[in-house]
């Protein structure tokens, strides 16, 4: 945060605008700035959970270990699915920005479905781990793994709810092109959740103990 970055005072002649555009000091809308601000704080949230995992890596005194229980091929596919959902998300945004509402809904639904596939994969992974003897109570690994990936999964689920809400609103004609920023902001949240998974997948699954 430095003092030089603000775009300077809004020129008086721009101050009244057309009644629609809000003239802001940075040129960004309040909503977009708010989402980025929130995402900055989310870094601290997920960082804490990841750090707790790191602290307890290799320190479990009993119970299954990561190497024994991870199914890397399965999780790789899951990760790929989530990654592709980011693509469908930007395509959804591009669609609404050019006024193509049908495509918007197609891509929004695609994103939600890919996200749901990821969650289904998580659920499958969790249940198989539990069957194989790893629960949140079992050891340090179980606790830190389930809490970290569980938090991430809840974030994805909330994102899916948002996407489906947008899809529904668009279907009812309440998401016109002028409101495309809503989709952009939902997209920011979605991509962030994807980015967190990029870190988790590498650092938790791939980096050996």
């Amino acid at each position: 945060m430095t003092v030089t970055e603000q775009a300077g005072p809004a020129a008086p002649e721009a101050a009244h605008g057309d009644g629609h555009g809000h003239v802001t000091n940075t040129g960004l809308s309040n909503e977009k700035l708010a989402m980025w601000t929130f995402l900055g704080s989310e870094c601290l949230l997920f960082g804490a959970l990841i750090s707790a995992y790191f602290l307890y890596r290799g320190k479990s005194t009993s119970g299954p270990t990561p190497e024994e229980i991870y199914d890397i091929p399965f999780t790789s596919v899951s990760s790929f699915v989530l990654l592709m959902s980011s693509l469908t998300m930007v395509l959804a945004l591009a669609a609404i920005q050019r006024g193509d509402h049908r495509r918007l809904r197609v891509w929004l639904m695609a994103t939600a479905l890919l996200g749901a596939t990821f969650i289904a994969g998580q659920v499958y992974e969790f249940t198989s781990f539990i069957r194989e003897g790893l629960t949140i109570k079992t050891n340090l690994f179980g606790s830190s793994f389930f809490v970290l990936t569980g938090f991430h999964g809840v974030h994805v689920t909330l994102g899916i709810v948002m996407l489906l809400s947008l899809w529904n609103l668009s279907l009812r004609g309440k998401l016109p092109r002028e409101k495309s920023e809503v989709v952009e902001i939902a997209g920011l949240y979605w991509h962030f959740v994807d980015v967190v998974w990029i870190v988790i997948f590498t650092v938790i699954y791939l980096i050996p103990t």
Partner: protein
Amino acid sequence: MTTVLEPTIDTPAGPADSGLLRRPTNPKGAWSWITTVDHKRIGIMYGVTAFVFFLLGGIEALLIRVQLAKPNGTVLSAEAYNQIFTMHGTTMVFLVVMPMSAAFFNYLAPLQIGARDVAFPRLNAFSFWAFLFGGLFLYSSFLLGGAPNGGWFGYAPNTSITFSPGYNIDFWIFGLQILGIASTVGAVNLIVTMLNMRAPGMTLMRMPVFTWMTLVSSFLILFAMPVITVALFLLMFDRNFGSNFFNPAAGGDPVLWQHLFWLFGHPEVYILILPAMGMVSEILPTFARKPLFGYPVIVFSGIAIGFMGWGVWVHHMFSVGLGPVAVSAFSVSTMFIAVPTGVKIFNWVATVWRGSLRFTTPMLFALGFIAMFTIGGLSGVTHSVSPHDRQQTDTYYVVAHFHYVLFGGALFGIMGGIYYWWPKIFGYLLDERWGKVNFWTWLVGFNLTFAPMHILGLRGMPRRIYTYDDSLGLAALNMMATVGSFVIAVSTMIFMYNVWYSTKRRRIPAGDDPWDARTLEWATASPPPDYNFKEVPVVHSVDDFWHQKYTEDDEGRLIRIDGGKPGPSTADVAFRAAAAAAVDGNGTGGDGAPPAPPVQTAHELGIHMPSPSYYPLLAALSLPILGYGMMYGRSSGSHYVVAGLGAVLLFASIYAWGMEPSAEPEEPHGHDGHDGEPALVGAGPQAELGAGDGADGPAGDGEGSDESPGTGNGEAGA
């Protein structure tokens, strides 16, 4: 601009039911407060609520002091004592100083930057209600089996289910999570407001110092709250679901708790002090009739403290056994952070140096702040010397230190702020004579209470003990501290009497600018109309309002240029104002100018303000429901249904909130082209909130995008 033909009430008169619930339209009455989204009303509610919690926290303090007045005290059992000192700390930090600061942030920041409200007015209301419900949730513990009793810092595994099997700690966990949501959401709101909604010409380096400190504190809150959120979640998972984060038997590390807590906890103390520093930086120049010395340096020091505050937290853990390298590194960083703080102190001294000083009550509190905070800062510097800290830690020396900085610092500053801005907020002045009595009793009581604690600590009296034996030689100083605490209580009552007396009896009208001050909030009426400024100001410099009033001649003497009488020099403000009131019968601030015209409504001026709403309250209400459900769920799964209902209420409120436009469509008045637009996603006439029209616009707080902290934090991530 064509105006409506006859004046109407302030709130929009059109159909008020774009959302599920009919929006209230009456600008007066209890419902108008319950559904308000006006930052000024929200600020007042924060202030009043925080003051009530101050009284509760103060009673807890008195109970502590009564128990410790004599050796082998029998007023409180050990268990009761644990609850009382835990709640005292938790209350003062989370329910008093933070919300009092929030009261001022909310009230002043938009005014000081020349805006009409914050970026997200409904979110602002939500923050307040979440704070209130969080505080009530915490205090309900007294009636529901016992208050939190693990200290305000909740060290694990003492707070684990093994050693704290009751609900005490659960109340603490969920209560703080609710408060955390309120604070984080408020921080996002303020950051966006200050970055995006400044009046034309108000660059960042022309903002008042208080606004700057609001911005820095908001960033600290934004980044620190997630850390304690995670710590509390980990503890909750341990207690409710059997995880092992702090379970030593499974290899869990208690020091993890301490790291996470203090990573939050240290920035937290800067969150507590920076706002008060900002207030002092406003008060001193006004009553010294000199600009703040070294404005850019004070701003940069504040920013530096904000950054450096992240590099010192281990100084709370010097005796935990981290090893000499860690301890030395953080010892050095802690010494370094004294530098920007010291710089500020020197700048404040330089501000009053050779100023034309008026020792009004706010000025006395501000000067008191400098003295008391410096003492507290010095004891802090002694803490940074880790070998010496080995002796001090966990003794009353630490208690002395943090009370000098938090009470002597934050509370003195806040009291100064209350006296200073009271006339702006309420339109009349607090009585000066009772104010001075308040100040001196506060100062004497405070020092009598906490100065002896330095010595008690060095003599070996540990913290957090419910009693001590009389052979230890601690009795006399403890008794002195107890007497001092009752002097503080008397001072508090004098303050309350002053409020009553000034409100009911003297009611000295303040006028716009009773102190002849320097910043924009003094350029509008007292109290300001709901739209703050008739026209959005254009700013040309720091202290722009001052430069609109005064220029200097060749010899540096002030010349008033806006037609008002030259401001107060040594005359008592209250006397002048009372004299003026006696002459012309209404409040004109004492400069003899003709009475101000009646304040016009927003509607008359064609200003669209955001409309009141029920949804912030409803959404906030869902949080304690979630809390109780989750908390009791660990004993009986059926309570998770309650949590589920809370979640449903939260989602439904947020969804409805997103669908509701931020401002209702108004009667057409020909001003612009967007009357009668169909209700789109969160659309509606953009509330024109000044040049920085970052109104509660389209999907700002709809679609759960920036509500996710609220949504998530209730059950899981933030």
